[in-house]
């Protein structure tokens, strides 16, 4: 049989009605009785050989007693021993629409004695199982026990996943057969109808693949004229393809014990022998018992693991929420504990995307892919809470190259309006497979089948897939999402309250400055006005009186100026900026024009370079530049030849303007004081001014999102620079989560 033929045979096998073979294996006999037990409907040819009586009334008589009670209420299968003419037989009976199916298997004296030895053995197994051991450990122990119990040279524990692909998770063997540990098998290796039979018949043995099938006659059931349904019959004959497979593999005997948890086929214990091997009914019962114990142990561990996983997720969630509540932003809170973030849903990578800002942990696709992913998600399911897939690359083309990080994605939307998401990723399953055995060695001599082929086939099936997201993962993500939304709402409320307070404070400040503007200026004006009138009115004033009056006027004027400067400064914080392109060359020309008077007879050398245009509020930038130029002029006053340089430079993200002079300079120790309100580095007698100019300049530049800095040395001149962003920062819209 070549590979293609085998494929065809396997394909045929998956469609074959394997529950209707019309024959049984020869190590037992089958009788079909009418459900009242009075009529013999069908029988296998080997009934006389097994029971010593023909399939007729005499045999029926012998069975009346053992079956009588069960036939009255045949809900569950019957297992018991009977004795016919001194022959001890194991009787198993199932009731179905085609009658009562009665299997009879010989039991030797020796078999009967082994039963006594089996109980302590199974007891020992139960004692030996470590309560702390994981599923693999308990499976391993069961495989060892089953091998000892049956004498098969190799026992595998095979586990199904959600897609019915299988993995060998535990193995015990004497080395005479190759190891299959960790091998993967596609679901098609054990087709659905075969799995259904495994679920219904927990123990199934084929003592010798070279057996001659024993026909059951008549072939069709006298009850309904159809082939006899042998689903429930453990003696059921095996598909010829399967028998050939066993012979080719050099394993003429095999047994399987189903692991059924909560009615679902969880896996199989699968035994193979290099020699024909018959097991007595008591041993088979013990194997079934062992399988059930294993199922209970696994079930308990799965429930325990599930509970632990949920508990761990809750812990991780509580930890993350607590951090988020303390941190300044949501992202910062998540990033503080990447382990908790990842372990919440057992992910390999995680990301949070808020307003196009990306923050990641573990293995994730790069930021651009993440940004396009969230906008795609947002279009797909606007505001839907939690979304997941285990086949991202086939659903979202830009993720095609991200198999090693993101075949699976679990996305929690944290804003109804914006594409803001918390995301978790799992890599492609193939990348995560633990690969113990070597598929090449596991293949048989002829190079046909099986583990290797199966592994390749399985790889094909799981390519582009991640491990599946469980309901508990989705629940954990949903729960964190609720926490985040709650957190965001609380932040928003806090912010609203704060903003209300700020508004109130601002209103008070406005009223305050309004009243200063009106009421504080007036008295100064009156002082100056009347003093000036007095000075003019009386021509006989002594020179000293005139000097006194002038001092009064000067003092009141400078106090008035101070009030004006202060008002100017406070207004700057409140007024809105009118941002547009500003021609700085033109601005500079205007500023020079306005200072020409101050310049007077002085010798000033201007070195004004080409200034790149700025983005900003023209009137305010003009004020900034004018302040710097005023200062430059003021502090070069004592220079024979003042030199004032003005220059500009366009950088990647900002434009920088420089004003340099050769004036008195300043001590860098006090550089940080330069820009404070009313901070002065010189005595008023030396250089006039209220000390608000640079504070004002800094405020203007700050409001543009820029910076201002000064360098200088005493008597060596000063250099002022300010930088303005080339693109204005987007207006301060309330951001929906990040603040």
């Amino acid at each position: 049989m070549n590979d293609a033929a085998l494929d065809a045979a396997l394909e045929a096998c998956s469609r074959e009605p394997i529950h209707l073979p019309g024959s049984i294996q020869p190590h037992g006999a089958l009788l079909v009785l009418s459900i009242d037990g009075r009529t013999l409907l069908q029988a296998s040819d080997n009934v006389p050989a097994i029971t010593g009586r023909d399939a007729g009334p005499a045999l029926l008589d012998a069975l009346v007693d053992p079956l009588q009670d069960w036939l009255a209420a045949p809900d569950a299968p019957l297992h018991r021993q009977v004795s016919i003419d001194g022959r001890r037989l194991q009787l198993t009976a199932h009731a179905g629409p085609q009658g009562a199916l009665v299997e009879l298997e010989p039991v030797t004296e020796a078999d009967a004695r082994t039963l006594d030895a089996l109980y302590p053995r199974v007891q020992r197994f139960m004692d030996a199982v470590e309560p702390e051991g994981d599923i693999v450990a308990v499976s391993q122990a069961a495989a060892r026990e089953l091998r000892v119990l049956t004498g098969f040279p190799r026992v595998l524990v095979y586990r199904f996943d959600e897609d019915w692909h299988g993995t060998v998770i535990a193995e015990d063997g004497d080395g005479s057969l190759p190891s299959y540990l960790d091998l993967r098998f596609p679901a098609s290796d054990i087709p659905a109808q075969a799995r259904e039979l495994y679920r219904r018949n927990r123990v199934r043995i084929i003592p010798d693949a070279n057996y001659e099938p024993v026909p059951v006659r008549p072939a069709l059931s006298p009850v309904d004229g159809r082939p006899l349904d042998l689903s429930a019959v453990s003696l059921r004959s095996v598909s010829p393809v399967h028998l050939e497979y066993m012979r080719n593999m050099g394993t003429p005997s095999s047994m399987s014990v189903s692991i059924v948890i909560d009615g679902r086929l969880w896996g199989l214990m699968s035994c193979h022998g290099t020699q024909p091997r018959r097991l007595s009914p008591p041993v088979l019962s013990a194997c079934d018992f062992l399988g059930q114990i294993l199922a209970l142990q696994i079930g308990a561990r799965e429930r325990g693991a599930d509970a632990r996983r949920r508990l761990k997720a809750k812990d991780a969630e509580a930890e993350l929420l607590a951090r988020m509540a303390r941190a300044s932003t949501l992202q910062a809170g998540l990033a503080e504990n990447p382990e908790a973030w990842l372990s919440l849903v057992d992910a390999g990578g995680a990301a949070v995307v808020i307003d196009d800002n990306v923050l990641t942990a573990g293995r994730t696709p790069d930021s651009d892919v993440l940004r396009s992913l969230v906008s795609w998600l947002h279009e797909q399911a606007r505001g839907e809470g939690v979304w997941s897939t285990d086949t991202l690359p086939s659903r979202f083309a830009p993720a095609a190259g991200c198999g090693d990080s993101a075949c699976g994605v679990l996305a929690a939307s944290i804003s109804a309006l914006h594409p803001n998401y918390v995301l978790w990723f799992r890599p492609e399953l193939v990348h995560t497979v633990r690969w113990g055995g070597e598929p090449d060695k596991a293949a048989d001599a002829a190079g046909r089948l099986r583990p290797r082929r199966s592994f390749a086939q399985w790889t094909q099936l799981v390519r582009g897939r991640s491990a599946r997201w469980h309901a508990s993962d989705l629940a954990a993500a949903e729960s964190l999402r609720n926490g985040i939304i709650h957190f965001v709402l609380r932040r928003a409320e806090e912010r609203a309250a704060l903003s209300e307070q700020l508004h109130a404070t601002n209103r008070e400040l406005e009223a305050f400055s309004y009243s200063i503007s009106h009421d504080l200026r007036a008295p100064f004006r009156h002082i100056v006005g009347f003093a000036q009138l007095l000075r003019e009115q009386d021509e006989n004033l002594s020179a000293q009186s005139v000097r006194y009056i002038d001092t009064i006027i000067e003092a009141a004027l400078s106090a008035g100026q101070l009030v004006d400067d202060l008002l100017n400064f406070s207004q700057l914080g409140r007024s809105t900026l009118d941002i547009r392109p500003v021609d700085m060359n033109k601005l500079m020309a205007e500023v020079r024009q306005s200072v020409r008077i101050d310049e007077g007879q002085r010798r000033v050398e201007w070195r004004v370079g080409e200034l790149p245009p700025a983005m900003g509020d023209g009137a305010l930038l003009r004020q900034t530049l004018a302040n710097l130029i005023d200062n430059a002029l003021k502090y070069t006053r004592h220079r024979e030849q003042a030199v004032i340089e003005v220059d500009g430079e366009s950088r990647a993200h900002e434009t920088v303007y420089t004003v340099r002079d050769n004036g008195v300079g300043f001590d860098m120790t006090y550089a940080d004081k330069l820009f404070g309100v009313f901070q002065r580095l010189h005595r008023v007698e030396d250089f006039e001014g209220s000390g608000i100019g640079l504070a004002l300049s800094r405020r203007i530049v700050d409001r543009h999102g820029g910076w201002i800095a000064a360098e200088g040395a005493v008597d060596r001149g000063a250099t002022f620079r300010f930088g303005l962003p080339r693109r204005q920062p987007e207006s301060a819209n309330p951001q929906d989560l990040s603040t």
Partner: protein
Amino acid sequence: MTGTLRPILLVEDNPNDLELTLAALARCQLANPIHIVRDGAEALDYLYARGDHLHRQAGDPAVVLLDLKLPKIDGLEVLERVKNDAQLKPIPVVMLTSSREEADLVRSYQLGVNAFVVKPVDFNTFLKAIQDLGMFWAVINEPPPRIG
């Protein structure tokens, strides 16, 4: 110049400011009579020739010098009434104020003020402003600020 010159209506509540403004106006050597009222309500009575001003000489003032902060009815409201009255609308109104508040400026221009003078602290500058106003009230006025 023959015939009666139309009066200047000065609306000012603060006695110091009143005296300084009058001193300034005196130096301008304007021939116009100056009529003084001390609050917004009285200003409106004068303009409408009612109440205490029922029997005043007929005719509108040449210009109204209006302080912004006034008792009873404030300057902005007086301005609003004048500029919303078809009869009174042509009378030039100059807002004289201590306030440097942009909002007042914006509001005044929105209401149709003809000039807006922030009273300078320096009396000489104030004098200059009043003189310019005397000749024509539009020289020192601050340009309309940006709205928005």
